[in-house]
């Protein structure tokens, strides 16, 4: 039961990150290596806001806004000039972007980790049916659930959301239909920013620190999750996220402690195995031949 709670919480965070990655991929075949920097910058925004003694709700909102802003800048300065380029180019561009952002943070803010103090009650544990549940886990799961519902509502019920889905499915035809493609892509990036910002607030509770490479681990996990589920598929991203969380927790449970150092290798091994079996991921679209 304890593991179930851990799994839900871990899977939720992975889901938020993986969704952001999958969204940006589906809109332009962009593998965005710089997605982690969205979380890092959101984290630094939190540190800065807390330094100004702003309240937590405001801080959280600013973190999300910071991520949105950076995401839109990424689009405007890097991905828009490169639109139409082959996926390899976009991938390399995102790697370069990630390096640039990390260097900027290291040089101008400092490589030393900055502390982020969450309110004390967040780590308080309730005993619920024999399980220790921290408030932060509850908040994480509920927030993620709400975000997912809002996202689904947006994508299904609003004109802009439907445009995003259409562009994700077939960019060219969507433009032919008269949808303003540039604006749609921008909105998608902003959405990814929202998800990253929220993920950052929830994720940093576990470490309480932010440094230039903070976003790297969530990036890798989010990637594995998105790829497992199928890069183009949003549902797949969520599925992959909970699957990954499940694998990691299962490894923790079943693997003898002296083999723990192999856990990362095992996860990646499983990833490669899945890719060999289903090259487009579990829920991914099969590539058309021509």
């Amino acid at each position, binding site marked *: 039961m304890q593991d179930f709670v851990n799994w839900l919480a871990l899977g939720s965070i992975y889901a938020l990150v993986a969704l952001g990655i999958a969204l940006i991929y589906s809109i332009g075949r962009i593998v965005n290596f710089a997605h982690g920097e969205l979380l890092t910058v959101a984290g630094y925004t939190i540190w800065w806001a807390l330094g100004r003694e702003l309240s937590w709700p405001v801080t959280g909102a600013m973190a999300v806004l910071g991520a949105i802003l950076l995401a839109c800048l990424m689009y405007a300065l890097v991905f828009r000039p490169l639109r139409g380029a082959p996926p390899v180019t976009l991938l390399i561009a995102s790697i370069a972007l990630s390096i*640039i952002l990390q260097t900027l943070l290291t040089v101008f803010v400092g490589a030393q980790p900055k502390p982020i103090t969450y309110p004390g009650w967040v780590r308080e544990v309730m005993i619920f049916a024999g399980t220790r549940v921290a408030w932060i886990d509850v908040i994480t799961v509920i927030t993620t659930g709400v975000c997912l519902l809002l996202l689904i509502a947006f994508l299904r019920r609003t004109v802009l959301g439907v445009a995003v889905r259409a562009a994700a499915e077939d960019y060219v035809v969507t433009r032919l239909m008269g949808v303003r493609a540039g604006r749609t892509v921008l909105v998608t990036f902003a959405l990814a920013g929202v998800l990253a910002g929220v993920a950052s607030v929830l994720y940093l509770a576990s470490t309480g620190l932010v440094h230039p490479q903070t976003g790297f681990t969530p990036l890798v996990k989010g990637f594995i999750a998105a790829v497992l589920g199928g890069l183009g598929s949003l549902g797949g991203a969520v599925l992959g996220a909970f699957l990954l969380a499940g694998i990691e927790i299962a490894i923790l449970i079943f693997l003898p402690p002296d083999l723990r150092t192999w856990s990362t290798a095992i996860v990646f091994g499983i990833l490669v195995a899945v890719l060999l079996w289903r090259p487009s991921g579990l829920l991914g679209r099969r590539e058309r031949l021509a």
Partner: protein
Amino acid sequence: MKSILSGSMNPERTTLGIALTVGVVVALALIASGSSRHGQLFLLFSINVVLAAGLQIFMGLTGIVSLGHVAFMASGAYVSAILTMPGSLRATVLPDAPGWVPSGLDFASATIVAIVVTALFALVVGLAISRLKEGAATIATYALFVITGVVIINLSSLTRGNQTFYGIPMKSTLTTAAIVASLAIIAGRVLFASRLGMMLRAVRDDELAAQSVGLRPHSLRLVAWTLSAGVTAAGGALYAHFVLSLSPNQFSLVSALTILTIVIIGGQTISGALLGTLIVTAVTEFLRRQAWTWEVGNTSVDAAQLTPLVLGVFILAVLVLTPNGVLGRRELEDLIPLRRRTPLTRQTIPASESGGIATPAPPAQTSHPPSPNREGHA
């Protein structure tokens, strides 16, 4: 010799080009032999040339980005280091190493063994990777990188795990480096210009069409992967015998990205790898020597810290302006314009003279600006 280069449109020109490319390395070696500081720079340069050539053999011929080649560099480094270490030192540094592992080998033998071991390792891994399509393959190479890191840390009887592996004899002299770099370049260029290279380029450019003429993408990619691993391992060996100590964090994503940067900026050929290394080494060294510091807030920033940023901006500029890199698909010799033997002239055939049968007027000797070679050999 010419028959090996049967994948090239002009084997004579290619042979010249190979000589030219190697010549650049030799020239730089000669220049660097003047001072020890230049010598150090040349060593770093040639290590990067070998690593870049290794990566390019895979990336240039398959078009797939590999983030995992650092694993082969590490493999080459550790294997060769274990073998060249004198027996007496072995007892202290690697007390738990199995007895049958030889020690005190010379650099050449150790490197050859390292290349073979790494190639075998790559072959096994490549069986999986060559079967994946482009995006998935790149992710798998990242998985390779991570898994290798874990393996290095865990095989501590041979690698000292997380602790520093020290006691490597200094074998990477200027001459050795120049030789290894030249060999790497020759190997890469011969491969690119060979029939095998041509088949790989066909698969790279249009997999479906290549399959329709009977080429097998998986097998071809596997060959490129294995060969590129071997060359990268040689670079790792050169590296190990230069820095004289190894630890897992030297084989990080940062090192992988440096070589990737070189290959992206330079272009998709071995000459591109060489040019990319020149550019990146020049930029890095230039920034390192800048004495100015910049006060920002309460920290001072010096130019060297901005190196990754500058390189990142370079990459973006290259991607926007010349997406295939500075040299694109050209080799060094393609920058030399071809001289046309028969100048083209416009010929008019007066209807009255020909009597119905067109006889072209003899070509006049006009001076005609030479046109540059088309991009690419394929």
